[in-house]
């Protein structure tokens, strides 16, 4: 099912969807916010802070000690190809496809309906093409929207997507729409490539890292790292977590909480021994994990080129510089 939603009808459709389930989309803040009256949205701004990770894998939530874990269903609109790749290729793969099934994750995953959009104006930090993605990636989405001059080309990609489009008045897509749409796609890809042009598969970033494990390189690259963990927490592919306890006021529950391999206690064992006692070792591990280990496990790197870690880092560390340096 495919057709054009005219721009003047778009708000009424958002209202209709929001009446069905809470609808979240990028607000003026750049975060996914709940749609409501007089809501001002911005579907162009990237990256969307926080992305969709919090909705499917909350930063801290109970995983044992009660029956039901996920709240009710939601629609997430404005999802990008980079986030979809991480969700499908990394999260679904590790949590659902690999035994044992993480039933708690699955309950959160099953609650989300995903409406993806094209990235027509990628940020200067975007490099999704280098890690195997694209600014108009839609794989794993329920419904995809591509902005054209007077509206959106809408394409249903699942039964849920078809259901959402049911009852929506769709116009014909004109030849001029198709042509302009295709030109915009090409322009977006070109721009993303101009930001960074290594190919994670072809250029074997993981192999480069394995062959460049020396302290001097990584110590130099890590010199402004303050081990805040922001790169991991903002990353749509990172899922490292620790288990601890939380209370729901009646009883103690087992809780799962995001963790960061950049924190000094990450791999520490009882008695204090840690396999990576130095900051540069932990810093290197993040790259080694993403481009070597995860590439091997998931057949894709643990990086979808969203650039959030670059924008987040208070030490102004740019992952692309670290990788480029390995080729110099």
């Amino acid at each position, binding site marked *: 099912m495919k057709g054009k939603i005219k721009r003047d009808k778009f708000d009424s459709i958002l209202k209709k969807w929001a009446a069905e389930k809470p609808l979240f989309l990028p607000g003026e803040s750049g975060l996914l916010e709940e749609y409501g009256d007089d809501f001002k949205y911005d579907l162009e701004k990237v990256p969307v802070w926080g992305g969709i990770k919090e909705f499917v894998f909350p930063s801290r939530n109970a*995983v*044992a*000690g009660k029956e039901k874990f996920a709240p009710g269903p939601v629609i997430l609109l404005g999802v990008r190809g980079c986030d979809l790749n991480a969700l499908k290729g990394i999260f679904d793969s*590790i*949590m659902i496809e*690999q035994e*044992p*099934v*993480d*039933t*708690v994750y*699955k309950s959160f995953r099953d609650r989300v309906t995903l409406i993806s959009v094209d990235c027509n104006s990628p940020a200067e930090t975007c490099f999704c093409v280098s890690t195997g993605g694209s600014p108009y990636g839609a794989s794993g989405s329920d419904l995809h929207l591509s902005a054209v001059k007077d509206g959106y080309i809408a394409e249903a990609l699942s039964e849920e997507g078809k259901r959402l489009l049911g009852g929506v008045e769709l116009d014909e897509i004109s030849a001029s729409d198709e042509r302009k749409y295709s030109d915009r796609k090409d322009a977006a890809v070109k721009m993303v490539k101009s930001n960074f042009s290594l190919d994670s598969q072809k250029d074997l970033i993981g192999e480069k890292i394995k062959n460049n*494990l020396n302290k001097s390189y990584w110590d130099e690259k890590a010199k402004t790292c303050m081990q805040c963990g922001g790169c991991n927490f903002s990353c749509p592919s990172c*899922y*490292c*977590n*620790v*288990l*601890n*306890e939380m209370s729901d006021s009646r009883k*103690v529950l*087992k809780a*799962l909480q995001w*963790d960061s*391999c950049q924190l000094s206690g*990450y*791999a*520490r*064992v*009882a*008695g204090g*021994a*840690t*396999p*990576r*006692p130095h900051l540069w*070792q932990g810093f290197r591990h993040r790259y080694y*994990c993403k481009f070597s*280990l995860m590439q*091997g*496990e998931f057949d894709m790197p643990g990086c979808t080129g969203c650039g959030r870690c670059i924008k987040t880092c208070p030490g102004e560390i740019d992952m692309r510089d670290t990788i480029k340096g390995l080729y110099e």
Partner: protein
Amino acid sequence: MNKNPYSPIKAQIKEVIDETPNIKTFVIELEEEMEFSTGQFVQLTVPGAGECPFTPSSKTGKTALMDITVMKAGAATAVLHEKKPSDIVYVRGPYGNGFPLDRLRDRELLIVGGGCGMAPLRSLLHEILSDRNRYPRVIMLYGCKTPRDMLYGDSFGEWGEEFEIHKAADKADSSWDGKQGVVTELFKDIKVDAAKCVAVVVGPPVMMKFASLELSKMGVSDDRIIVSLEKNMTCGFGKCRHCLVGPYYVCKDGPVFEYGQVKDLPDVWD
């Protein structure tokens, strides 16, 4: 319907045995039986203090009773050490691969244990005793810091009747009937067919590293040196990434590995 992998089984402490000044064995009774094989581990929750991985030291099989031997090494184990009979803990598992018994049977078996590494080895010794004919010759080398730190001292008499045992203490005293020195010193005292024997080495990382090196020097091939690694196993089933050593998840690909699989991986002995 898939089971929630994070849900633990409630268990009650039945008995607390003081083993050494900083090691205790907790005999626990689970509300549901759990089937585990020797060398596999469980995650034990100390309510309010945290969850830690331990390899049961008791007899394997389907059982509600389990011995968990615990060294006081951190925050959670300090709280656990204060626990008394009838107190409640929680257990989930079992996790990991366990010792490859089919590769240990019908040949000379050299067991090298150090410190709390004796806990999984005790369960292996139980296994061997229950299937005694399949293990023609068992030699055990055991090292501890001081005679007071010797784990399962009461069982050594019984084990000594079945197995060839050599002991070493880093700092011996007049009560000590073994050698003085580190466990690798004991290799000088034994005669094994290095081309055929299998060695199982469990202990602190530095001890496993040097014992494995020593065995290599003796001519034991890397695939016949079996080690059990201890890393930060948080979830136990490959979903949290904490225990990764090179490409291996210690929790599900291990904790038992062939020395050859892991010897050159970064940070493996740290």
